[in-house]
């Protein structure tokens, strides 16, 4: 989901589908027979069939046309060159775009590397921290809501706004950090956003700040599904808090962990808004998403080349999405 953009979107936050199908939804003995609605079909009039066709057809056409056909078009265009003006300038070039991308484009491999770093940082730092917060807030303490809101607020605010807010923190002359450490005088600047060795990490701090709250909410929901009797039994057996968590609670969070892993990978691939607001992905903050976008809204409109980058992004995403959906839907079918 999300989208969003953000990502959310969450956006970006296409979040937590059913991976989490809880044990509660395990098939009841009669459920196979209960799937009936075959009976429904016999009762349908012609008009009902038409209604149903429209109800399913219109949204499907819209979705398939704008999302899947364009994705296919990306694949097709990746093997061509096109200046975007008129269809007759489309020329088949085979693998040339990919060859150029993999061998001569100086931004491509750094972008891949940054996307990987993005994922590794998100999964290693804010994700466990979000889990830690969720475990603490799940203890029925007072003001839990207030704390939750504080941690979750960054997820609610637009990534673009977050970008501006963090610029106020990182700005070399007027920013919070440099003002506090006295690095805001000419000659002593630490240029958090301009320095190619620093900027990716500076942006990742802002991204982690947001990600932790998101993960906290997902884990809080997961923890609600943990049977209290299990915990009680384990503490009666003399397990301490950490042992209970490690041996009883965490294993039951497996479905949530799957969702969290998928969401984090997708977020890392989608990452765009923050970087675009910070410095448009120049020097040190290249990302695949930024390279694609630059081919559209930049001065040079190289459609085929931009599509080739998009295809790389597509292949990586599908490698994650497909196994996840197969596992999820297999569970659905059984349920």
């Amino acid at each position, binding site marked *: 989901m999300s989208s969003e953009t953000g990502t959310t979107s969450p956006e970006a936050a296409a979040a937590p*589908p059913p991976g989490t199908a809880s044990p509660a939804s395990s098939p009841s003995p009669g459920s196979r027979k209960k799937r009936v609605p075959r009976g429904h079909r016999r009762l349908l009039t012609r008009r009902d069939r038409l209604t149903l066709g429209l109800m399913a057809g219109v949204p499907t056409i819209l979705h398939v046309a704008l999302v899947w056909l364009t994705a296919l078009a990306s694949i097709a265009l990746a093997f061509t060159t096109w200046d975007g003006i008129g269809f007759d300038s489309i020329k088949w070039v085979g693998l040339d775009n990919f060859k150029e991308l993999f061998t001569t484009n100086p931004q491509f491999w750094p972008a891949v590397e940054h996307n990987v770093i993005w994922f590794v940082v998100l999964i290693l730092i804010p994700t466990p921290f979000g889990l830690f917060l969720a475990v603490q807030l799940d203890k029925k303490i007072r003001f839990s809501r207030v704390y939750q809101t504080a941690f979750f607020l960054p997820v609610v605010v637009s990534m673009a706004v977050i970008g501006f807010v963090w610029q106020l923190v990182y700005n070399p002359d007027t920013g919070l950090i440099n003002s506090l450490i006295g690095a805001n005088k000419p000659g002593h600047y630490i240029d958090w956003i301009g320095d190619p060795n620093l900027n990716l990490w500076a942006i990742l701090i802002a991204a982690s700040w947001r990600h932790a709250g998101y993960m906290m909410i997902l884990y809080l929901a997961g923890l609600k599904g943990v049977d209290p009797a299990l915990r009680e039994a384990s503490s009666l057996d003399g397990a301490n808090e950490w042992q209970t968590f490690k041996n009883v609670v965490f294993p039951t969070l497996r479905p949530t962990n799957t969702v969290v892993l998928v969401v984090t990978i997708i977020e890392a691939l989608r990452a765009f808004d923050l970087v675009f607001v910070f410095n448009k992905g120049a020097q040190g903050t290249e990302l695949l998403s930024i390279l694609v976008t630059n081919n559209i809204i930049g001065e040079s409109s190289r459609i085929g080349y931009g599509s080739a980058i*998009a295809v790389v992004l597509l292949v990586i*995403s599908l490698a994650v999405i497909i196994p996840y959906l197969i596992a999820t839907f297999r569970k659905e079918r059984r349920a």
Partner: protein
Amino acid sequence: MSTTVPLKRRTPVRPARVLLHTFLVVTSLAWLAPLLWALFAALRPYAETSAKGYVSWPDKLSFDNFTNAFQQSDMLHYFGNTLLIAIPAVLLTLFLSSCVAFYVSRFDFRVNLFLLLVFTAGNLLPQQVIITPLYRLYLLVDLPGITVSGKLYDSALGLVLIHVAFQSGFCAFVLSNYMRSLPHELTEAALVDGASVWRLYWQIVLPLCKPAMAALATLLSIWIYNDFFWAIVLISTGENMPITSALNNLSGQYFTDPNLVAAGALLTAIPTLIVYFVLQRQFVSGLTLGANKG
């Protein structure tokens, strides 16, 4: 981590709790610090901070930056643009995805699993995968007289369409899970009594889905309001931009006055914050709806 003392049931260990609260208070404040810092900057006049430095005791706090940002940057206009996109997009997404969900969850034709798979996977794709052809397509579609730009490109309609197409994946999935949990006898009886399919949907199933719809509506309004990417690429005229991408345009003009930018950014965030605080429960349950099905 806060405690290694074995837990006795029902008698909370005091020192551990105090430690936990201290930790949580400190961390929450650290978490809010960037936003509070933006607020502090926005409340001070630029002249004062440039003379005394940003980290300094304020002489005078006022809302002047907020009123200036609001008026000078014509924010009301951009809020209007956003509403023009977000309201139809949220309503259409909910309507269309509930239609698909109704179909796949109540009428067990063979396509249902495949259809849901297509929708759900589409929603998980990064937007950049489809943007290049989409951008060309939007430039290609002529709509003289229907949109101001005469094309799908650079129009509110274009943004509404892509939001609906993209977001309906998640919503169809969540709603179909929800509808499947409703007892079959409900609709079966009505069908036998001769009710039409449309009536089944509109008068029986949809009213029962209110909680899920409310949760999704909250989520969608925040996501669509916050959208930055589609608007940056698919809208070219500054005038037509929704608030988040307009902010990006405007910040260039105010680069010399970070306090004004801070005020503008915070003003942009206010509607989402209001929605979140008023509908917090819906928002959180929406995020985890897929998780607790049935």
